[in-house]
């Protein structure tokens, strides 16, 4: 029988009991949780879920990285219950839609997101309980809302049964090409196999700083689950504002990043006076102990790999997607080729169909939750159609060279469905036709104004642009930073269309006014 995350965690709790599993900042103090304490809390949450009658159900989590978040997540998946991590930065209406579509019956909510409570209670009738991720008891005038401490206190009686490797452990939402996000169902076996198959080892107590959003498969599986399997100490970056500061506080040896982070750090490296020795600069910017950065989620210019090597930091690029739990291939210290995304993991087979990368193996998802058509399109005879184009060189290294599907991949690793945003922006009367494109690390709205509205309001060119910019500014305020529109092009002519009157997306920039014209 295959391994479970529960087996991996129990082994680590036994072997590394006194080592710090998690460290985090509270004001200026560094707090920590040993593997032994972590396991005790995980078991308490799992037993609490059993006692409250939610074993086997779907339980969502909304919040940024915290020790309470990860203990609750592990309390869910080490029982036979399904965890649904959601992006705390999404607007309320998106979150309630995902809570309802995932059939979540309970929710763990970060105290920082308490403002969402009323709206969630009003729009998600299936939710039987909401546990606030805090140890302090809570005085909230709704019996459905309790604290994590109360859940753990309820944990008397039986433990939850061990899950089966084929049971769904987690549902992770990812952008869909049709404008509706899809819930990727990953089994217990999918997750455990990915943790085991990623070829990286480190000494127990190795310090890892987690800077990616915890609801992302890459962060969740590779920072946290892989980190715990090695007995690493996972440190929490409390805010992207403080990433560099936290690197000097925690002095990490290993980090996972998306290319955007590497690009930003490089700007800081470049701004330091060239006369200062590189070792001193590296100590200041990276904290002094950083050895490896694993990166994935988007294309990384090989320039950065050479550049960071000058400062003594190895950048190892990999490739993955939520549907593959998520790592498919990765460069390693021993086997790497700049520009490639490494060799496939031992549990993944790769083949190509018209240039598209197909993946088969024990970490490939079970399917999309309640989306049989999408599942059938993506999973054919066990082969997952990635939507990425690539090739394998003679040494077995995988290279990515394009996209099949219409998704924008930003350098922060976020996958954006342009249709999803276009549909929302098109509701404004002044927007006649719209195409959203991705460039320079951001999104640009290309808009052809509705000429009837322009005429009726008597707007000149400048007024149209100001009105559209004001509308985008308003839209941006309610969006997580990665979904904000940072560029605006106002077209003078309609978009080029196909015979069926659909805008030709690949020709969206044809016939555009040039800047300053």
């Amino acid at each position, binding site marked *: 029988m295959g391994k479970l995350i529960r087996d991996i965690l129990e082994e680590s709790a036994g072997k590394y009991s006194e080592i710090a599993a998690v460290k985090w900042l509270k004001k200026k103090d560094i707090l920590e949780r040993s593997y032994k304490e972590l396991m005790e809390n995980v078991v308490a949450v799992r037993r609490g879920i059993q006692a409250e009658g939610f074993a086997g159900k779907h339980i969502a989590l909304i919040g940024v990285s915290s020790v309470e978040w990860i203990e609750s997540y592990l309390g869910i998946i080490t029982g036979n219950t399904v965890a649904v991590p959601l992006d705390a930065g999404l607007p309320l209406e998106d979150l309630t839609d995902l809570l309802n579509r995932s059939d979540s019956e309970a929710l763990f909510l970060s105290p920082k997101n308490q403002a969402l409570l009323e709206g969630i209670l009003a729009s998600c009738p299936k939710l039987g309980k909401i546990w606030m991720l805090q140890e302090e008891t809570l005085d909230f005038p709704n019996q459905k809302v309790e604290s994590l401490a109360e859940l753990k206190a309820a944990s008397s009686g039986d433990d939850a049964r061990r899950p089966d490797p084929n049971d769904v452990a987690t549902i992770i939402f990812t952008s869909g090409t049709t404008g509706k996000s899809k819930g990727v169902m990953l089994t217990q076996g999918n997750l455990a196999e990915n943790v085991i198959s990623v070829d990286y080892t480190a000494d127990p107590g190795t310090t890892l700083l987690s800077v990616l959003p915890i609801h992302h498969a890459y962060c969740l599986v590779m920072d946290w689950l892989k980190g715990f399997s090695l007995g690493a100490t996972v440190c929490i970056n409390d805010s*992207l*504002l403080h*990433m560099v500061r936290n690197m000097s506080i925690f002095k990490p040896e290993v980090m996972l990043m998306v290319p955007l982070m590497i690009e930003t750090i490089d700007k800081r490296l470049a701004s330091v006076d060239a006369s200062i020795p590189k070792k001193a600069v590296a100590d200041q910017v990276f904290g002094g102990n950083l050895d490896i950065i694993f990166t994935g989620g988007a294309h990384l210019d090989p320039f950065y790999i050479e550049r960071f090597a000058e400062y003594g930091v190895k950048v190892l690029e990999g490739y993955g997607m939520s549907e593959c739990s998520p790592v498919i291939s990765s460069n390693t210290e021993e086997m790497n080729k700049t520009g490639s995304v490494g060799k496939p993991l031992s549990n993944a087979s790769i083949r190509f169909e018209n240039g598209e990368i197909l993946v088969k193996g024990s970490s490939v998802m079970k399917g999309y939750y309640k989306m049989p058509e999408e599942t059938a399109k993506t999973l054919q005879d066990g082969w997952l159609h990635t939507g990425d184009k690539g090739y394998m060189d003679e040494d077995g290294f995988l290279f990515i060279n394009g996209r099949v599907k219409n998704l924008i991949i930003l350098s922060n690793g976020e996958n954006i469905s342009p249709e999803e945003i276009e549909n929302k922006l098109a509701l404004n009367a002044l927007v006649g036709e719209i195409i959203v494109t991705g460039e320079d690390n951001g999104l640009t709205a290309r808009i052809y104004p509705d000429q009837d509205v322009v005429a009726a309001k008597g707007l000149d060119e400048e007024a149209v642009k100001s009105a559209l910019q004001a509308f985008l500014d308003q839209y941006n305020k309610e969006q997580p930073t990665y979904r904000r529109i940072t560029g*605006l092009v106002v077209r003078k002519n309609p978009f080029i269309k196909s015979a069926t009157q659909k805008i030709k997306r690949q020709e969206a920039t044809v016939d555009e006014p040039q800047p300053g014209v």
Partner: protein
Amino acid sequence: MTQEMEFKKIIAQYCKVKPEEMTADMRFREDLGFSSLDFMSFLGELEDTFDVELEEEDALKVLTVGEALELLKKLQAEA
């Protein structure tokens, strides 16, 4: 060096515009080409350099160089 110049020098690390060419109405994303993370990193540097503490939610509403400088002055006045 004036505080404003020191402030603009931090901005200049993330873009190609020189501090002396920066104007208050320049937008970080659209005019200076900041990525979302450049902006976060810049805010972190403001905190460390000027010893202020930003509320992330308020800080992310800032769009222009002038608005960021105003926010900094307001926080310093409150400190």
